[in-house]
């Protein structure tokens, strides 16, 4: 939509043309022409041209400001200004005849023709002036939209982080773990104590790391390990873990709690559904400027499937998108008997980007 034709801007725009029309009338009158001639010619033609110049907006939109093409853009506007001005003056000539007939003074036309070179130049200039106003409005609106987008993204990121923090400890995991502790208390008090320590270790690192902006992949792996330590007590021999982590990936900075939800999903939706359990595979490697983290698990091909990508995955995807934009990828590979998620993130080591 045309930025001047909406939201009550048109009156302001037309008012801005008032002084121009006034100047024209005053100059004509000063040149000794009658007030009726001066007003009759200047006012309608000024209004007509005010509207004609609005057309430059489409040209501005088609040619966004760009230093590399400044010459081309200037030339295009100059050409459009000259053409519009010429067309306007052609209409003005017809109007001067009408005015001459009305006032009964044929000399109006010739006086008008005498002004033509000046009017043409001023017309072309005014067109270019309106073009620049349009460019101003466009850049103003673009920057406002960008500001809004940035704000939205920030809110989104904050929400995602909050949700991630609240979802990081699955209550079922806690209840099941406590049930295991309760079981061990009777049969194997030493193991019960170990389980309490593992659980405390996991909860403490979750709380500590979850609040940070980014942590090293090594810390994230340790957190996943603490989680797996607890789950291994619950699942016993049903849960096997295989890790393949390259040394150069450990230093990479990643947002906290990106691996843990994947590991938890792999157990809840994969290994826990297998009578004999299976092996969960975690791999991390650095490839050029990216770090690739993958979690793979077997699953029961005849098992029930929860439809959709699942809450954990979509939250993770949102968090990555809010933080890295299109720089991060979350890829899911599904087979009837296996499930794998791969994260590809920009590899940043040390502190700061």
């Amino acid at each position, binding site marked *: 939509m045309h930025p001047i034709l909406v939201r009550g801007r048109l009156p302001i725009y037309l008012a801005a043309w008032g002084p121009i029309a006034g100047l024209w009338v005053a100059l004509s009158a000063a040149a000794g022409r009658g007030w009726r001639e001066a007003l009759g010619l200047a006012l309608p033609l000024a209004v007509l041209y005010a509207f004609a110049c609005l057309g430059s907006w489409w040209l501005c939109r088609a040619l966004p400001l760009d230093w590399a093409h400044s010459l081309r853009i200037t030339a295009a506007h100059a050409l459009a200004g000259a053409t519009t001005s010429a067309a306007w003056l052609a209409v003005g000539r017809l109007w001067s005849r009408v005015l001459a007939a009305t006032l009964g003074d044929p000399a109006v036309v010739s006086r008008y023709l005498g002004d033509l070179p000046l009017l043409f130049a001023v017309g072309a200039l005014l067109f270019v002036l309106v073009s620049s106003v349009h460019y101003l409005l466009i850049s103003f609106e673009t920057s406002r939209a960008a500001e809004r987008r940035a704000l939205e993204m920030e809110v989104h990121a904050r929400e995602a982080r909050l949700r991630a923090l609240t979802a990081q400890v699955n209550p079922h995991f806690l209840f099941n773990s*406590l049930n295991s502790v309760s079981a061990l208390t009777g049969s194997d008090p030493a193991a019960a104590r170990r389980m309490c320590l593992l659980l405390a270790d996991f909860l403490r690192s979750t709380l500590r790391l979850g609040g940070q902006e980014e942590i090293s992949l090594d810390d994230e792996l340790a957190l996943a390990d603490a989680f797996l330590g607890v789950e291994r007590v619950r699942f016993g021999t049903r849960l096997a873990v295989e890790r393949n982590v390259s040394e150069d990936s450990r230093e990479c900075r990643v947002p906290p709690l990106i691996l843990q939800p994947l590991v938890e999903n792999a157990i809840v939706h994969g290994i826990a559904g297998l009578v004999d359990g299976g092996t969960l595979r975690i791999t991390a490697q650095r490839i050029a400027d990216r770090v690739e983290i993958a979690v793979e698990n077997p699953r029961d091909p005849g098992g029930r499937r929860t439809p959709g990508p699942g809450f954990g995955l979509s939250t993770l995807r949102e968090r990555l998108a809010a933080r890295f934009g299109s720089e991060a990828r979350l890829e899911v590979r599904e087979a009837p008997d296996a499930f794998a998620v791969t994260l590809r993130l920009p590899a940043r080591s040390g502190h700061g980007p």
Partner: protein
Amino acid sequence: MDPERGTLRVMVVDDEALARDLLREHLSAHPDVRIVALCANGFEAVRAATETKPDLLLLDIQMPKLDGFEVLELLGGDVPVIFVTAYDEHALRAFEVHAVDYLLKPVAPERLAEALARARSRLALGDRAPLRSLRDLVAATRSGGRFLERILVRDASRVHVLPVDTVDHIEARDDCIAVRAGGQTHLKPQTLAEIEALLDPARFVRIHRSYILNVDRLAKIELYAKDSRVAILKDGTKLPVSRAGYARLRELL
């Protein structure tokens, strides 16, 4: 409950060894309770329950192969059950299948004692027969109001899990339905109307009083006589199509 000896024969089903251990330990405090089977998954549970006929099931919900509700569906209506789970969101469904109780993990021995007392009084009343209808049971296996994803059938102590995509058609036969899937026919004690209500109507159509068809399997429909048509499936099977059935099919296709 065996009234003469006064013992309560209990079966424990949980996929976690520690959770089974805990229940066994808690149950050992009750001298009238005898554990007749400890099962680690739904298949084992169905087999063991068929063989040992327990008085009471202590049943986990999230398990490999079959979940607790599916185990209950396969065992039919009349075994009293106490659900034992870390998830409180299944309580409503448990109520619908008339569970004796619903225990949350970690399990408190006092709550278990309460649940056992409730089970004993229910058994003493001989209140076994109208515990629950099959319709409630099958309906409860669908979580969150979704359509049935798989049909469970049992012959003797063997369980077949038939994902609905593998089902060609279902036929009404006396008190049973005959489910044709993967080249085999499985009988299940259920009515055609009951199963029809649970299946996705965009994929399964009642084409006749006695037949439900998986529309993916349909090859063509031929006019057989005036007002009577026959559906020819991709594998060549012919099924009768009633007038109302034809209207439903046309609406869908």
